[in-house]
């Protein structure tokens, strides 16, 4: 049984109806997508800004109601939008550790909230649980009486992770958990996340725009473009042998020591306009391999090689 199963999940943000004329179709932030995450797996989600990765994450934790589709966690469908029910199964670690902590609450108050609200624990029980969690994320208990502004980014992010752990979830959604941190601290947090996963048997959905990071921590990777999945594959394969031209473009754009500076695409290419989406493949406008069929038909995700799926009419050779 997969830890997380998503079927045809989609989100359309309605646009305001003008006074005259019919309502416009709305912005399709996430197009219907289906995927599974096995227990204990780390699924990486990469894509550029505006590709729908944060909208996807917010739907998965119940902060946003999906327009269509369903979410199943360990075989149980989550159809009610009660965040407290979601909270025990799936938790969220935010991108900006500082702004995810209430500036006027002590760390202790922050940590107690999920234990009180989700599990109705009494004070002695809570204290015991908090000290267990703090020990596992390498934080000193004297931090509990301090306020968020007294912490560095790396410490604050560890507090954010500790808060997510306090709810004792099965799955944690990590939304760019290290992109606000310095490189030397980033590695501390990533390694901590790997340890915690082994210790508590967690399942991760790791959202980021950093290809090198996602490759280093994930088992499988989903590449999103313009709200849709363009490629799914094993982490060790997907950037080395991409099938979709967009995945190739991403891999070529990442600056790597020792690789000469070349712009992989010279034109001032832009993401397509969400208010006026192009027909067919959304990437066609930037794609060197695009033909007539790409501008007319939206490609479906199809199996291409072992454990690799891509949505492309003219996939790259393996």
């Amino acid at each position, binding site marked *: 049984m997969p830890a997380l199963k998503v079927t045809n999940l989609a989100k359309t943000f309605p646009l305001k109806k003008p006074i005259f004329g019919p309502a416009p179709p709305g912005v399709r932030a996430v197009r219907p997508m289906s995927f599974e995450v096995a227990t204990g797996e780390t699924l990486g989600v990469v894509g550029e800004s505006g590709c729908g990765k944060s909208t996807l994450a917010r739907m998965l934790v119940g902060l946003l109601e999906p327009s269509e589709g369903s979410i199943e966690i360990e075989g149980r469908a989550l159809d009610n939008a009660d965040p407290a029910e979601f909270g025990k199964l799936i938790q969220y670690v935010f991108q900006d550790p500082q702004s995810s902590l209430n500036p006027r609450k002590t760390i202790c108050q922050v940590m107690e909230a999920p234990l009180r609200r989700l599990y109705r624990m009494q004070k002695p029980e809570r204290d015991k649980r908090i000290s267990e969690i703090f020990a596992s994320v390498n934080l000193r208990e004297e931090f509990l009486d301090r306020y968020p502004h007294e912490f560095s980014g790396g410490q604050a992010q560890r507090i954010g992770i500790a808060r997510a752990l306090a709810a004792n979830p099965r799955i944690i959604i990590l939304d760019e958990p290290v992109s606000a941190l310095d*490189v030397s601290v980033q590695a501390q947090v990533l390694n901590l996340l790997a340890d915690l996963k082994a210790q508590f048997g967690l399942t991760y959905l790791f959202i980021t725009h950093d290809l090198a990071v996602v490759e280093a921590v994930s088992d499988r990777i989903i590449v999103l473009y313009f709200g849709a999945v363009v490629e799914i594959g094993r982490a060790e394969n997907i950037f080395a042998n991409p099938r979709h031209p967009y995945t190739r473009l991403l891999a070529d754009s990442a600056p790597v020591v020792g690789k000469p500076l070349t712009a992989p695409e010279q034109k001032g290419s832009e993401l397509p306009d969400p208010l006026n989406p192009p027909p067919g493949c959304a990437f066609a406008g930037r794609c060197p391999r695009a033909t007539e069929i790409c501008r007319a038909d939206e490609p479906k995700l199809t199996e291409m090689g072992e454990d690799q799926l891509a949505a492309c009419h003219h996939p790259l050779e393996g």
Partner: protein
Amino acid sequence: MNLFLKLLFRNRLAAMGAVVLGAILLLVLLTPFLPLQDPDVTATADRFKRPFTEGHLLGTDHLGRDLLSRLLHGTRLSLAIGIAAALIAATIGSAIGIIAGYFGGRTDNIIMRGVDMLMAFPYILLALAIVAALGPGLMNALIAVAAVNVPFFARNIRGITVGLAGREFIDAARLAGMGHGRIILTELLPNVLPVIVIAMSTTVGWMILETAGLSFLGLGSQPPQADLGSMLGEARSAMISHPHTSIVPGTMIFLIVMSINLLGDGVRDALDPRLRSGALSRPRATTLVERQGEIPEETDDLLAIKELETQFHVGNRIYRAVGGVSLAVKAGECLGVIGESGSGKSVTALSVMGLVASPPGVITGGAVRFQGEDLIGARYETLRQKRGDRVAYIFQDPLSTLHPLYRVGQQLAEAIQSHHKVSNAEARARAIRLLQDVRIPNAEARVDNYPHEMSGGMRQRVGIAMALANEPDVIIADEPTTALDVTVQAQILSLLDDLRRDRGLAIIFITHDFGVVAQLCDRVAVMYAGRIVEEGPTQAVLKAPAHPYTKRLIACVPELGGGRRALAAIPGLPPVVDNLPEGCAFAPRCDKAQENCRAGDVTLKGTAPRAVRCLYPEVAV
């Protein structure tokens, strides 16, 4: 709390207001126990006694009642009504504002349109209408004044709440299982409370005036009960013949409202978090310079930073953000400056043109020589002429560096026209050419866009175009691609590379990304805790880093193609620059550190072009 009081009383006017208001409050609190005459007992024989007559310190009114006694009782009543009205208006208004701001959507729309309707009436008319409907009397005046002020609080608090409700900690609270009511009470309220206090402290004064106004018209307190407004109202007929009957309550109203407003302004200033950090005043046009010691000699480089020291003086603390940095670039060269946040790389860059905000920034030593001329301590006019003309900056976030209300073409034209006398048409033509130079498609149309109509990559191209506007010799780029997507970053980097080759530009490129440095820069300097720990040609430094920090930092950066793995980390945190350790700043995190690393200052040495600040370097340089 102590800090708050200290800040409050640093403002002399606020302190004066506090003293006057305190005295008045003390006086009215003591009123029932003072040996005063009955304020309501009339003695028509003693009417209109002048002040300082026997038995009546402030004289008597038209019915012979003691003015001092009436004044104190009246002030007591007026203050009580004013404060009660403020509390009621703040409570109801804030509740409405928080609910509207938190729930948003239709709830917000309905509530705020209702509030707008209340605000559409002139407030005194509305108050009159309420009193007219309820009948005259102090309680009804109080209700009217409170009701009239509810919209003010509702709108203010709603604005703050809308900003807070989108913050991540509210989402986090929801995931922790909190309901709406609890989120409003425990997450939102503590954060809007300072705003409510500020709004209240500035409105109590009005409310006292408004209540006095209603009483003056005879709609508030009813005879014989005295409040300040009714005292004025009763004295109106004798204003010419016996002015003291109007002057006494008038002065009291003046003192109360004035002291409350001064104190309220002081409270607002003291609670404002921006003012707490010491940025109490507008920053100066250039960074303050207080150089001690020798001023370094000039060199033949295009831009040379020599032994630069920049500090931040906050209260008693001194943050040594830049502690003796020397860097130089020649024409056509690209120098990378790499470091983590807090390493002083941005402050170094901003010091070049005196752009570090003062206070709290102070340049305490060294020199910045542009073509031999020392820019530190240069006159403002000299610096202004060079800023953007000879030395230009590109900043990290183009959305916050472009003015949102002007078209990008106008902003480019302004950049040109502030240094060169050219006509508007000529400036616009050059703006279009610049946009073409940075490869913005369809530049003729894009020149009339507002910044929000462009994507992040486009905006950063505009930022680069603006830096190029006056064909500068040096461009200082402070993390110009950090906020951009990788595919856009690749385009921007290759654009910068082409520009410097075509135009012989010198670029100082500040970043935290080794991949970017490796691709773009000829030389690299690594900074840690305000000092350069290693420098040299990029390939040499990256291939064989000499400083343990450089080596371990490079190991921390995951590279694409490495597969799934545990990443190297540097334990601990960079030091805070107001409390640097003795000796090497990296020693506490370094596994090669010896006793003598922690003892004395470590110098930067090596054979040019490489140098390292380490006693036990990884490789000899």
